[in-house]
């Protein structure tokens, strides 16, 4: 951790989160997790399913609470969700009865500042490149467009941190890359802190300043990798490929058991191969 002087936005301190299923069997989703997220950085969480990356994001959002330990934002304990921490879910979860424009406006309405701020809606529609679709209903737009709306919906509140929970997980490769560029652009333009959960190694390297590698059962942080690739990132760059190999190796060491899962077609389909053309 070389940049300790930088201002800390989110502080996760010694957090434990255990889930119990109906039979009383316990799953340790997070064990003794410590993490600092700095103001303005783009940090991503990567790891196999069950490593607690989504749980961690939900704890930061305030959608879930830890059994022990605490999560702070600017030294204030996070106890419940709030608009300062925007959250984008894997399924865009747009409200189907509202148009694109109305979905984006919800944050303003929920905070009773719709009248003062409604002029901003257009700005955010432009930012995500959905001009012309303002009056469309969610069932009329594609999955990628819906995810863009979900991002704009969170951004209109000018959150201090934008939490993205595998927002591109359900999209095809073309849409995914397109949206990765959009996310990076939004990050550059707005300066918002972004925390991204992903299972795509390339996505993590392409977007992040730091990559948090997590291990499952019990879920904990294995290593945090600094990505020093600069602004222009090329997925076929030598440094990129070296970093990709390093992350993949870490994931294998981190208990992802990729080799043993090669026989499992479901697991196999979740693996993003480094050699795969994107």
């Amino acid at each position: 951790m070389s940049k300790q002087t930088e201002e800390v936005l989110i502080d996760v301190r010694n957090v434990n989160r255990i889930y119990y299923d109906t039979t009383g069997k316990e799953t340790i989703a997070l064990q003794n997790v410590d993490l600092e997220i700095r103001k303005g950085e783009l940090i991503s969480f990567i790891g196999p399913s069950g490593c607690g990356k989504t749980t961690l994001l939900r704890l930061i959002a305030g959608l879930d609470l830890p059994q022990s330990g605490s999560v702070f934002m600017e030294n204030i304990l996070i106890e419940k969700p709030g608009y300062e921490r925007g959250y984008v879910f894997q399924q865009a979860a747009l409200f189907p009865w509202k148009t694109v424009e109305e979905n984006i406006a919800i944050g303003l309405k929920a905070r009773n500042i719709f009248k003062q701020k409604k002029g901003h809606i257009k700005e955010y529609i432009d930012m995500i490149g959905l001009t012309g679709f303002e009056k469309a209903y969610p069932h009329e737009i594609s999955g990628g467009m819906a995810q863009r709306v979900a991002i704009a919906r969170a951004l209109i509140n000018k959150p201090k941190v934008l939490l993205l929970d595998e927002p591109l997980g359900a999209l095809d490769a073309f849409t995914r890359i397109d949206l990765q560029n959009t996310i990076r652009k939004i990050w550059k333009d707005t300066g918002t802190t972004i925390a991204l959960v992903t299972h795509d190694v390339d996505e993590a390297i392409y977007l992040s300043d730091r990559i948090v590698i997590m291990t499952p059962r019990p879920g904990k942080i294995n290593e945090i990798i600094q990505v020093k690739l600069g602004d222009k990132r090329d997925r076929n760059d030598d440094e990129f490929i070296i970093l990709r190999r390093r992350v993949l190796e870490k994931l294998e060491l981190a208990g992802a058991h990729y080799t043993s899962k090669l026989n499992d077609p479901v697991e196999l389909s979740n693996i993003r191969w480094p050699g795969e053309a994107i």
Partner: protein
Amino acid sequence: MEKTIKIKQVVSDIDVNIYWKPKSKIWFFASVAAVIVALTVSIFVPNVQAVTNLPYQFFLVGFIIVLSVLWVISQSVDSLRKILYQKSQFFFAVGIVLAVWDLLSTKSGFLQIPFFPGPAQIINVIFTEREILLLSTYYSMRLFFVGLISGILLGIITGVLIGWNRQWNYWLFPVIKVTGVIPAVAWIPVAIVIFPDSFSAGVFLIAIASWFSVAFMVSTGISSTPKVYYEVAKTLGAKESFLLFHIAIPNAVPDIFTGISTATGFAFLTLIVSEMVGAKAGLGWYINWAKAWSAYDKVYASIIIMAVAFSIILGLLTIVRNYVLRWKKGIVK
């Protein structure tokens, strides 16, 4: 070559789904001819029963005029032409049935008065009794709407309470579940005792009939709101009341309409039965009164009025529903 095949495929898909009946002009002209046949029968075949044929003949002429006007308009309106031609076979059958029915009743006496009057007789009764029928329809509709709307409002309020609040759910849901299965007309004896007049008793019965189905569907809709919607709203800064009024209730709107459709059916039934039992006005009362005089032509006349009125109400409900639920996939073409 490939292109033409594809286009043909698309057109035939639409035909199969909506306009699957023959679209040739022949059936349209056949339908007009059938109505003309019915008119000819009425004018030229001598009556056996003593019936005034004139209103019926006017009706048939009106039918022909409407068909012709629609045909003229449809020559420039594509969608109307398709619908008109699609319905042509049915109109043809209507004309034939009217002619045969007329022959069997008024013209031959095979179907006997008073129990099985002919079309001329029924339409004549609608014409001569128009004032009392109109008044009866007005009273029925007034009772119907006051009862149904209060039932729907009560249903929405209780449904929201049951679906949203645990305490209300605990106390009210069992009540709704048990009383909801009782046909509202079973309360008629109670309603007569409690309420000062037949109108308020009728409102009570219709409201009860529609209340439960709406309440049940609304509570289902509210409690089935996906959890992720609430989470999204909370991370956007929403308070409890916002979650209820902007998330849970809009999410329940399709279910509210399902409840209202069911409620409307129950309300029709309750309306007519309660009017038959206690009221001194309305279509249900009129049927009962006509039956007492063995005036079956009047019974049929009021049944026809009911069919028309209720179809219009259901049609309007569908229009409102399609407009309100325009955000839903597959509802709007």
